[in-house]
């Protein structure tokens, strides 16, 4: 299982801030693929992935227990 975190527009489309999904093995790209399929109305093209609170490349492995966050373009300040 992995823990997913949604923010801003993705959170609104998903209708939730967090969810757990079953997970055995894969990369950040695989998680992104899952999200695109699960929430097709959201445009993930500018979204970055963070694993356990660090930005990662899409090739990064995702292990059971990881926290995976979808980070749309930030707009703080």
């Amino acid at each position, binding site marked *: 299982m992995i823990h997913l975190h949604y*923010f*801003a527009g993705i959170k609104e489309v998903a209708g939730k801030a967090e969810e757990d999904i079953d997970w055995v093995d894969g990369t950040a790209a695989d998680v992104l693929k899952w999200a695109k399929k699960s929430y097709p109305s959201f445009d993930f093209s500018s979204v970055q992935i963070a694993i356990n609170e660090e*930005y990662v490349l899409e090739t990064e492995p995702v292990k059971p227990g990881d926290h995976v966050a979808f*980070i749309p373009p930030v707009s*703080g*300040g």
Partner: protein
Amino acid sequence: MDAGLIKPFEVTKKPLEPARYMEYVTHPGAGAVTLFAGTVREWTNGKRTMHLEYEAYEPMAEKKLAEIGSEIEEKWPNSRVAIVHRIGALAISDIAVVIAVSSPHRKAAYEANEYAIEQIKRVVPIWKKEIWEDGEEWIGDQAYKPGGEQY
């Protein structure tokens, strides 16, 4: 307030008090303190904002703010930094972000302070939603494309 209770890198729902952070970074070795406050603007590109909503990935945002602080202390030696961002519903003119930087000389204090706000806008997972009279939208800075920047 007791400056000792300050968290120098924080995301908070509470109103920000800039003077506390100025006090926090001020020390005998400092010859300059720059205090930046980012406030909620009413008009953006001809559209009137009624209020803003800020949201953050709080633990990661605080970690990234602290990283910016470490980068500044490395790039501008003997500086001291505090960066705090407010989240939740903010009204026009409310303070959304406070950046306090002290350094031995003013040039470094100005430069480091500007560096901090630019990094916030690039890497810190905080989002704002503009709420207008006739709608609302999450704002994303499209100038920074994923993968195009080194974090």
